């Protein structure tokens, strides 16, 4: 085995602490991941040694910072297997990436009476921007549903598509159901109708190797903080053909070519979409996070996380009164569940008391709550730094809590 979690734990000293007098167990990875020491140290070191605003600088630190920032772009480009570095836009997170497209793409390509397709399992970040765009442009939002087991009803896609469909936006992996959607197939179907596809990769990049050219997606969005990187940084990949045609999103420094009050012309990609001083420290941290996981190997990570998922699912099933939301055979290490009649808020509070962090609530996915007719869920989500022993303690804690009600 190429994967030794004991070594891995050393990379994440933050995990080595007590919460409520018990060793901390962090099962809230789908909300945000922990950052390995190399990333924290990289940011620290950089912050102590190098700092200047980037681009157009003629001095040493400006050049060094610019190089570090642009080097991070190259790392992301390799990571996503994009064709050109100019197709990698640094944003502040998945949410901003999607909003960028929902504003700029729709401003150019969405007209009254047009349609946008999303799925029923989307995170709010991949619903609300499109709803807002539809409202601005008097267009219509259509929804591809999922089945109770958590699988998308891909068969229905053709029937949702019309000559007015302008874009399809879909999560690669659902943040509640864990389902890995067959996006390659979906992209193929959409492309048959000349419909571009935006993939929300927030929950897939930490677990699945991405090749945007092979997927042939038109846009791909993800967040740094979910992939062991810093907060406040994210990525939008977009095919040059689309990005070139879209009007800019934010106006400001760096994204312009020449400003006069009569007429402003815009800079080339990627700068056109990077207005203002970028979060260069964040980009550099993200680059170092990607290098870290490439060293571990995403296949190794995925394989181990699958073991965690299977082990946890099996053990949880053995408890009576366990209901799972999302049981696709093809899913990542995310388990949404309901135990007996215990309210998720109670369960989360008590698990926390026992040192275990899970997420409870509506998980930014109201339509998924509505689908199952529940007001809230409990979600345990695993990462490759979690262990089988932690799952054992999680199960024991569930048993203990079950008895309290």
């Amino acid at each position, binding site marked *: 085995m190429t994967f030794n979690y004991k070594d891995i734990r050393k990379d994440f000293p933050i995990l080595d602490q007590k919460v409520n007098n018990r060793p901390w167990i962090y099962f809230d990875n789908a909300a945000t991941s922990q950052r390995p020491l190399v990333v924290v140290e990289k940011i620290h070191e950089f912050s102590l040694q190098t700092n200047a605003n980037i681009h157009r600088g003629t001095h040493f630190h400006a050049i060094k910072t610019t190089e570090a920032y642009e080097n991070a772009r190259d790392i992301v480009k390799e990571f996503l297997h994009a064709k050109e570095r100019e197709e990698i836009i640094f944003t502040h997170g998945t949410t901003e990436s999607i909003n960028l497209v929902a504003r700029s793409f729709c401003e150019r390509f969405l007209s009254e009476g047009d349609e946008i397709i999303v799925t029923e399992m989307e995170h709010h970040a991949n619903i609300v921007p499109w709803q807002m765009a539809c409202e601005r442009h008097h267009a219509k939002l259509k929804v591809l549903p999922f089945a109770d087991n958590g699988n998308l009803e891909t068969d229905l896609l053709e029937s949702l598509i019309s000559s007015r469909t302008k874009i399809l936006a879909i999560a690669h992996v659902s943040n509640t159901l864990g389902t890995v959607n067959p996006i390659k197939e979906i992209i193929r179907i959409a492309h048959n109708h000349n419909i571009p596809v935006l993939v929300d990769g927030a929950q897939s990049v930490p677990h699945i190797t991405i090749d945007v050219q092979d997927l042939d997606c038109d846009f791909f969005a993800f967040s740094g903080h979910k992939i062991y990187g810093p907060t406040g940084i994210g990525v939008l990949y977009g095919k040059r053909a689309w990005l070139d045609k879209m009007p800019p999103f934010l106006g400001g420094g760096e994204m312009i070519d020449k400003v006069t009050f009569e007429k402003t012309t815009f800079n080339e990609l990627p700068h056109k979409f990077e207005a203002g001083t970028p979060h260069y420290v964040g980009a550099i941290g993200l680059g170092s996070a990607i290098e870290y996981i490439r060293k571990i190997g995403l296949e190794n990570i995925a394989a181990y996380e699958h073991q965690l998922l299977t082990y946890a699912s099996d053990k949880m099933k053995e408890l009576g009164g366990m209901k799972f939301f999302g049981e696709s055979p093809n899913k990542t290490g995310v388990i949404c569940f309901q135990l007996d009649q*215990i309210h998720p*808020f109670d369960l989360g509070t008590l698990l926390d008391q026992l040192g275990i962090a899970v997420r409870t609530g509506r998980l930014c996915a109201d339509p998924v709550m509505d689908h199952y007719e529940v007001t809230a869920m409990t979600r345990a989500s695993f990462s490759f730094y979690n262990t089988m022993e932690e799952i054992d303690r999680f199960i024991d804690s569930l048993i203990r809590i079950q008895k*309290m009600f």
Partner: protein
Amino acid sequence: MTIEEVQQAIIADFSVYEDWMDKYTYLIELGNELVPIDAAYKVDQNLIRGCQSRVWLQQKMEGDLLIFEAESDALIVKGLVALLMKVFSGRTPQEILDAEPYFIDEIGLRQHLSPTRSNGLMAMVKQIKLYALAYKQILSQKK
């Protein structure tokens, strides 16, 4: 019992438990014992905003006293609600306005139930005080 006495009693009750899991067990007990409010009152306009679980708060005047009824779909929250009911329900508006629910701090609940924890305990206290203020004004106009 006065508000003061009730708070002291609650503090005494909780002082028995050292382990937080036991305090929660006790809260769950209290939650289970709380008389459910009439389904007719479980409407959106009685929902307390900012809670992760749903909390309904309903009030009425009986003579000079303000009567609260409340419920939650989460049991721990229901237990907390039960405590607040003991403290605040069946008091005059003035008594409510004058009282600080210091028991929350004393039994260590605030740190576990801060506003950012979005369980809405604070939101609920605020709502109770708002009602008290409103009724106080109504009463003073009657006189």
